[in-house]
């Protein structure tokens, strides 16, 4: 038994040492690849991505900035229980989920439909012009978009003038999600259609002509030729979006928040910011953020599994 294991480990050692030797030779020959090409990205990743990961420890402490990570008191899961038993927890979680799930239900199909329509336009000149307009809002900043929304929906703004009313939409919690999602489609749907449009124009022209010769109508052509051309892209996009449901962005929600619409507009990312950087409750905020990240990773794995099962084993 003993001799056996030593021989095995000897053989292994021999293998690893020649492997190691080969690697060293390779690295010496190609040192530029490591030092010049990889080093900058690697260092940035270590400093700004991995160093913060070790900072997650403070979620299990009562972190005191003056004492540092090593001097602060360990409190186990205190902040997690505090968060999960707080009456607000469910509200923020539901707000986050509703905002992204509804946003996806409305926002996901529209770029695909846009791409099908654009693909049917015969004149390339008109198509280019429409695309120019469709992509335009993508280059408007979040702040300008939200400023625009606030102007158009303000009490004295054009929408109220048209309706002859004086409704303050920005203070209504029940209006927040609609505002967020509609403005999101306004800004992003055109841009999101690019990759579908591009794969559609790569779809086999002969296949399409054959389908037309066979007397296929538009819906049949879509099913037989166009859908297969973009299916993989749709699946990837779906997994990425569904898997990132919890990581819905901070910037826009925060810029559309008012004190009065908070019941609908406070989501986990804005709560993390408020608790952490405004109230200075570092440990609690980190715990909430970690909770969010973990859920997100689980979701991504689950969605990927489900989609893979439905899609003949093809996931990410």
């Amino acid at each position: 038994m003993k001799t056996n294991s030593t021989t095995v480990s000897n053989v292994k050692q021999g293998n690893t040492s020649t492997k190691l030797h080969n690697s060293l030779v390779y690295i010496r020959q190609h040192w530029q690849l490591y030092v010049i090409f990889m080093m900058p990205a690697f260092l940035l990743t270590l400093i700004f991505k991995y160093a913060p990961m070790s900072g997650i420890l403070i979620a299990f402490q009562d972190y005191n900035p003056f004492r540092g990570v090593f001097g602060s008191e360990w409190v186990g899961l205190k902040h997690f229980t505090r968060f999960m038993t707080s009456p607000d927890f469910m509200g923020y979680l539901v707000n986050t989920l509703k905002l992204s799930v509804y946003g996806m239900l409305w926002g996901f199909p529209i770029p695909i439909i846009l791409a099908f329509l654009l693909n049917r336009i015969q004149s390339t000149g008109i198509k280019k012009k429409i695309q120019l307009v469709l992509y335009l809002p993508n280059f408007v900043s979040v702040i300008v978009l939200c400023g625009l929304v606030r102007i158009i929906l303000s009490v004295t703004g054009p929408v109220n003038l048209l309706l002859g009313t004086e409704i303050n939409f920005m203070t209504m919690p029940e209006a927040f999600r609609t505002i967020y999602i509609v403005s999101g489609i306004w800004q992003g749907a055109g841009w999101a259609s690019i990759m579908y449009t591009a794969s559609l124009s790569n779809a086999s022209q002969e296949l399409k002509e054959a389908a037309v010769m066979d007397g296929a109508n538009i819906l049949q052509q879509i099913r037989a030729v166009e859908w297969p051309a973009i299916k993989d892209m749709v699946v990837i996009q779906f997994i990425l979006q569904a898997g990132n449901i919890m990581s819905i962005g901070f910037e826009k929600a925060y810029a559309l928040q008012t004190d009065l619409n908070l019941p609908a507009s406070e989501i986990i990312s804005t709560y993390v910011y408020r608790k952490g950087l405004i109230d200075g409750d570092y440990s609690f905020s980190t715990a909430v953020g970690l909770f969010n990240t973990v859920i997100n990773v689980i979701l991504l794995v689950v969605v990927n599994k489900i989609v893979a099962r439905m899609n003949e084993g093809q996931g990410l």
Partner: protein
Amino acid sequence: MKKKSIFKYSAQDRMLLTIGYILLGLFVIAIIVPMVYIVVASFMDPITLQNKGITFDFSKWTTTAYERVMTNAQIWIGFKNAVIYSVLFTVVSVVVTLLAAYPLSRADFRGKGFFNIVFMITMFFGGGLIPTYLVVSNLGLVDSMWAVILPGAFSVWNMTIARTYYRGIPQELREAADVDGASELTFFFKILLPVCTPVIAVLTLWQFVGMWNSYFDAMIYLNDSAKQPLQLVLRSILIQNQPESGMIADMQSTAARAQLAELLKYATIIISSLPLLIMYPFFQKYFDSGIMAGAVKG
């Protein structure tokens, strides 16, 4: 020669297409109308605008709002900072990303698996807001522009796009360079990069637009008003309703001040959005090829 459509649509198909095109047309109109509204409103007399809404009575048009915005120092500071941050960020980010993608695109690169895993993990898992803030602050970067530039400079997603693009470059180029005894650096800069213009253009545009339009990092790391980029200046005018001092201070009544503040918003939106909106059509031809490069499963 482009083939003309060889068939006629059936009645049912025509109906489907008509509905589709009407919807597409409505969407296009919905994009244009708010933009036109802002442009027209920015020239209007604030009192008329508030009471009657938009009119096309050009006789009363005024450029007061533009004059006030253009003569405001904070707007120009914001512009200057936004240009500096966006240019530096774009250069750092695109260079680092293009460099890192090269070894990972090579089949023989030792340690590829290791680096791939190290990078991939960061796409799905991270420290979060406070731990990142603490690292940046421990490095002494608070109130330094590098706090805005460095943390997000290396994008794994963009690296994947560049890597996929490199792999599509014919192998013969590489072999030719080997025969000539070119070093990695010469090959990369003299042979590889020149044939990668579409992907470089797209990454440049993305990073520039992303930095120009973002405000979160600047909001948390830059407290000094002399270092604020344009978006933060815009935020106080558009979102927090706090026009920069001096923009409306000379107005006598509160009502007049409020009306002018509204008008300033329109002019601010136009002035701040113009640079990107003018720049973007020049990049349009690269969109398809650049984006498709990354869309291929990476």
